[in-house]
């Protein structure tokens, strides 16, 4: 297309240049000498060739809970409630939920199906989109294998972190299922949890009266000699150097699968 236009412009220029002068018809307006025309100002920056958006990347979305809201069994305001979602976690951080589906109700309002931090583990519910804030995107997923006592962090499906871990003793086992990282605590000055502790949406099915609700954490330890092993109340324990490495790679909102 550009070549066609250029050719047309060139042809027009030839016609103008070869038109006989001195005829009675008025000619084109005189063109000022080239030297009198200022050169265009060179732009101070140029935009590089854009890179295509990659829509093949698997992205997980979490969103903050903006107000207390009932999660329901279906995307309808009259559907039975499953659980109430609060704005804050027991650690006073913003409560977030992992989005796993979307639908519209009969009036066209958008609802989001979210993973719930409640018992029984694995519960999901529907909340109005308007009750949630903006999406936070993550590309990582943590897989904890209780039989092998390992934790593996994947990004775009490829492992980027691997460590041996401690899981729950038989009397208070680490629950299996699909969860997500809800918050990240640091500088809490409690060697039992090591330097960094992640909270997940998973809960101990046994320690239901634990302060804070018995949420399953992923944290360091002051007893590294016990790892790997079945040593905890349900939390996933890592050596402190491992939890620090993990903390550099894993963000809040990351899905966690415990098998």
């Amino acid at each position, binding site marked *: 297309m550009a070549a066609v236009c250029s050719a047309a412009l060139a042809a027009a220029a030839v016609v103008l240049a070869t038109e006989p002068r001195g005829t009675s018809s008025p000619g084109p307006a005189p063109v000022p000498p080239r030297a009198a025309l200022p050169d265009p100002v060179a732009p101070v920056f140029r*935009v590089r060739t854009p890179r295509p958006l990659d829509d093949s990347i698997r992205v997980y979305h979490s969103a903050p809970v903006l107000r207390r809201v009932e999660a329901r069994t279906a995307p309808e305001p009259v559907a039975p409630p499953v659980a109430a979602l609060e704005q804050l976690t027991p650690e006073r951080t913003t409560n977030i939920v992992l989005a796993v589906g979307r639908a519209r109700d009969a009036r066209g309002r958008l609802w989001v199906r979210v993973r719930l931090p409640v018992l029984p583990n694995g519960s999901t519910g529907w909340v109005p989109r308007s009750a949630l804030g903006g999406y936070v995107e993550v590309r990582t997923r943590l897989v904890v294998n209780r039989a092998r006592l390992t934790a593996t962090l994947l990004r775009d499906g490829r492992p980027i972190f691997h460590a041996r871990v401690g899981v729950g003793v038989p009397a208070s086992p680490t629950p299996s299922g699909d969860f997500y990282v809800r918050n990240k605590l640091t500088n809490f000055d409690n060697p039992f949890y090591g330097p960094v502790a992640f909270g997940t949406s998973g809960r101990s099915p046994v320690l239901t009266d634990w302060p804070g609700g018995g949420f399953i954490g992923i944290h360091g330890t002051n007893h590294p000699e016990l790892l790997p092993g079945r040593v905890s109340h349900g939390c996933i324990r890592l050596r402190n150097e491992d939890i620090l490495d993990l903390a550099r790679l894993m963000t809040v909102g990351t899905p966690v699968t415990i098998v």
Partner: protein
Amino acid sequence: MSGDADPAPRVDDGLTLEELDADGALLEAIDSVYGDSRADLLRKAAFGGAALLGVLARPPDATGAPKKDTAVLKFDLVFEYLQSSFYLGAVRVGTVQRMAPEKARWAHVLGAHELAHVAILRKVLGRDAVKKPFFNFRGVTESESAFTRTAVAMEDLTVAMLAGQAPKFENRALVSAVFSLLTTEARHAAWARRIAGFTPVANAFDEPKTLAEVDRVVRATRFIASRPRTRGRGKPRYSG
């Protein structure tokens, strides 16, 4: 997973972002993100950063004009963040994948362009580049119709903003570069209008907008939100 019956804002050839939401709550959100109102942002904008010093050939003068250039570029960068996140968000939640091929290509191309604009403005501003705000598109990127119509409004607004600001830069080389962005954004706007079924060129004359006008429109969308506070220093209460 999702139908498209969402009650999107009324749209016509004169669509503006103001029609999406008019309660103006974005001011607080901007303040919480930057700790500055727009006016403060402009007043406090610091001239600095090796990259920008290289860009602005003319040294700061008594009128502080280069400071103003910097502040306007910062504002442009926030706007480009908004646009690129808008298109990329629609791709990430699957809205664009469900579009017809030609429409999906439009969204992909505009998204890629806006990301390239972010990259160049960040490079030009160097250490003065503002951090990307946190966005809440309130379901607009999850509805094909709402997404498309909002894209039209956003592209039209970008053209009006750049038309209003480009002539004001003190540095002529910067004027030239911003005009190159403006012509690209004008093509974006025409493409978006065609995709949405509107007249590609709505008027014979595009009215420029002031930064204050653009700021007011952006605030009205409430697309810029407070970032969730998911990190804490409290004692863990996990089961251990």
